[in-house]
């Protein structure tokens, strides 16, 4: 079974956000929920100032604090072959302990019924524009008109209120040998997911070629997301 890790090449990353939007598109995530996200920082003072950017997502830690703290039995967060940390909506009791335990802030809680926007029945101009719900009724889709049915093959297509949700490394795509959608939509070729046990995989090759960092490695969580190179090119 592959030993999946993700490698993000910050030198190639252009900070464009396509991964974030792509993830929302693929996973039907509601407003304010970001399975793929970013951190950024501006340092220094003008004119010696630097803007640095880093895409983020669930690190699918081998020593996952979220699994450790999940109080239900069997746990709602669990590891699967390949190394991903997945989540069961069915078992989740919405206690949010995992959300607090995650040092990376990548677990999200749905306080309300998701996609309230698309459930709205109001119209702007009576008779000539539609309500969001009318669009969905006309176009099809589930709750949202551009709903992606692929997501529901391994996880709820849209996760309900009072449950957490998180990145799955697009396990529903991986089973078909497809890259996670964040990687596929990255226009800069900065993201790779592959088998660390395969010496010929992109990820193995990149981790051989470049020094890497993992987020807050000192915590001992053993993240499966590796970052290589720097976002900011050096002055020449």
């Amino acid at each position, binding site marked *: *079974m*592959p030993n999946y890790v993700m490698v993000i090449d910050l*030198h*190639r990353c*252009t*900070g*464009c*956000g*396509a991964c*974030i*939007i792509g993830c*929302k*598109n693929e996973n039907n995530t509601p*407003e304010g929920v970001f399975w793929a996200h*970013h951190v*950024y920082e*501006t340092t*220094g*003072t*003008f004119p010696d*100032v630097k*803007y*640095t950017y880093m895409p983020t997502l669930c690190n699918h830690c081998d020593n996952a604090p979220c699994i450790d703290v999940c109080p239900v039995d*069997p746990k709602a967060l*669990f*590891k*699967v*072959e390949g190394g991903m940390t*997945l989540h*069961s*909506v069915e*078992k989740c009791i919405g206690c949010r302990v995992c959300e607090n335990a995650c040092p990376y802030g990548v677990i999200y809680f749905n306080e309300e019924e998701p996609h309230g*926007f698309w459930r*709205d029945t109001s119209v*702007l*101009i009576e*008779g*000539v524009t539609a309500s969001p719900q*009318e*669009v969905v009724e006309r176009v*099809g889709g589930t709750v949202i008109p*551009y*709903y*992606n*049915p692929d997501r*529901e*093959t391994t*996880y709820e297509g849209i996760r309900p209120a009072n449950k957490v949700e998180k990145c799955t490394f697009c*396990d529903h*795509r991986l*089973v*078909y*040998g*497809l890259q996670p959608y964040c990687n596929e939509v990255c*226009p*800069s*070729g900065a993201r790779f997911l592959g088998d660390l046990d395969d010496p010929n995989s992109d990820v193995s090759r990149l981790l051989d070629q470049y020094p890497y960092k993992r987020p807050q490695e000192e915590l001992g969580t053993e993240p499966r997301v590796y970052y290589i190179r720097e976002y*900011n*090119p050096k002055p*020449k």
Partner: protein
Amino acid sequence: MSQKEELGKGIKRRTFLKISGAAVAVAALAGGCAPEEPEEPVEVDPDEEVERVEPVPLAEGSWLPSGCAGCTSWCAKEVYVVDGRAIKVRANARSMVHRGGSCPRSHMALQQVYDPDRVKVPMKRTNPNKGRNEDPGFVPITWDEAAETIAEKLMELREANETHKFLLMRGRYTQLNQILYGRMPAILGSPNNISHSSICAEAEKFGPMYTEGYWNYRDYDIEKTKYVLVWGCDPISSNRQVSHYLNAWGDLLDRAEVAVVDPRLSATASKANEWLPVKPGEDAALALALAHVILAEDLWSREFVGDFQDGTNRFVAGQTVEEDTFNEAHTLGVVKWWNMELKDRTPEWAEEVTSIRAEQIKRVATRLGENAPNVIVWLGGGPAMQVRGGYAAMAVHALNGLLGSVDNEGGSIRGASIPHASVPSSGDFIDEISAEGAGKQKIDQRGYKEFPAMASGNPGSGVVTNRVADGILDEDPYDIKVAFAYWNNFNFSCPEPDRWNQAMAKVPFFVHSVTHASEMTRFADIVLPSTHHGFEQWGYLGQKGNGYTHCWLARPIIDRVWDCKNPETEVVWLIAEKLADRGFSKLLDFCKAITDPETGAEPQNGMEFSEYAIKHRLQPIWDPNAYVSGDRFDGWEDFKASGVWNSDKYQYKTLWDDFGTVSGKFEFYSETLKKALETHAGNHNASVDEILETCKYLARGEYAFIPHYEEPYLWGEVEEYPLVLVDYKSRLNREGRSANCSWYYEIKDIDPGDDKWEDVAKINPADARELGIEDGDRVQLSSPVGQIECKIKLWEGVPPGTISKTFGQGHWAYGRLAAQDFAQAAARGANNNDILPADYERLSGSSAFYAVTRVKIEKV
């Protein structure tokens, strides 16, 4: 090929088994819900074959070719369609321009096409009063009623012999616009087909036009370049070919060096080796100092520019040079330029003016020279779209001339032409009334003494988009009685938009063809719901990048969400039919003259007209018997399936012997500009000096014909308005049209310095301390022409003395997210155009967006 079919090709299918402690449990993923817990975990040997259950198949759909006109990158796309629904967008990787790259904003097309706030049926106004605060009282009508009313109004113009009082305004478009924009006004008898182009970046074209005779945007050969100096644009964010540059940037940084000139820390500046934060409006000073160093330090291209007869460099600061000591090769006037302008433009002089350290200027000039000719000086709109930006655009682009990088490997190159056929000319469909009307002065005042608008070297041939509002208000040259506009929103996108509110309130009958009820729509008498270009209609666009030009085809690939029509074709057909019913059949005759190239059939309805028109225009691409160049196709169906044509690869140095300028050379002394200015002056019995004065330029005499320094023309005195406004475009803008998409706001912080769900103006913390402003304060920003209210963000990426804000928000119409309160016409965020004066780079006709005004800040 469907996704499922693609998946079936040599891909090993797997399921993921749940791991319980160290053991591996045999639990296949079940369909439709979370993984099922096995009743009893079974330990298995990892090496042992275990029975696996096939996973649930992904949705069966098709990737269908299309294209994106969300910005001027004009990328080829594919849309994933499942059961008639579009659910994903990606690049059409057959394009050689951007290959597999697809920018972040491309995905937002999904939120546009399924936006609930789209206009779903034709509607008419019931409130005769027009104004921002007047509810139009729109009520639905049929297409038939809409077309009847429009035809009636057009016939009234004909009957009164005033067909010129018809105005057609085009915003974004596809190349089928040749029908609605290119032919319909002329056939109806109006000169007024007005494009948006001069609120885009016409002044940028001024630089290459009056140096190398090229009125166009350039391609830049980044695959072969060694050094890139990006100037006043943000290629990985908002400038042209964004998907291509996003795709290529990492490799570029591995291979070459990148420096960025910009008065703010742009996305591209953060991905560059160095940043030159030039003082707004002082771009020409920096360019001239770089040119000075390139000449004084022996760094120019001998091959392209030539050399001194004896090989001794006489370009010494402060000293003039005898012209006959230099043998010029493919350029004209390098010594004249040095003597008149460059000899005194030292880096030390420029440091005072630009705030860029002399040492940095020297370093960048040296790196350019060392890497020449495989270098790019990448001219963007920033230095050009200023009141006095024409000569700055020339100065920046002229560096490519000095470095020999024009039309050269790794340098500034051009694109190929798309081999498309024209629709029949309007000439055969014009009667006396139309001919007389179409011959009148255009409403945008192009060609007036103060608006030379010299596109392609011809005075009065360029558009002055934003001047149309004044033309309407002042009835100069005449009043407008019937206006038709599509895919535009000048009441939002032009500086000083309130002029447009007044102007459109004054037009007695206005038809707007749009997807959304925008600011401009508020003034419409009839609103026609438009198809979305990427999903619901025929259309095509071509663009250059990566050494190629591509041309993509869009076609209806989903069921139209509402009762919409394509304004460029179907609406023309509908109006043509109604005009014919009233005895004026010329427009319908024209439409019927565009037949199916395969069968010769005449179109019988608007949909057939659309398809025949596009087949006609693209016949040289898809028809093997009409083949011209680039990719080959077996026929229409073959091209439709591919969705994109690519030109042959760019060939270098084909222009060096004749650039198409007046002298045939790359002109540092612009004979081409001299001819254009003298023609314009002659048209007005004036001198060139008088023209320059009228156009707010300071240069006199021979300086009019060389790239030279001009102090920036800024509105507002520094004592009252301490900060210079730096306007720029969000990387999420689909021009002004993504402001009703939730993804726009959800990740608005993707623009360096910006915040989610906010519209911030950014100032340097040092200025904030001096002005007593704190991070997060609500403030009013005022310029001499208007005020806006927004939130202040303190950010070190903004130089002291400036205030930086993205354009894109501030809609008071357009939809429930775009506006704070659509019914009350209350804006979300603030529109930069409200504080930008309606001023111009008049030689090109371009609106000035940059270094054009100072502003003051007051807490509210």
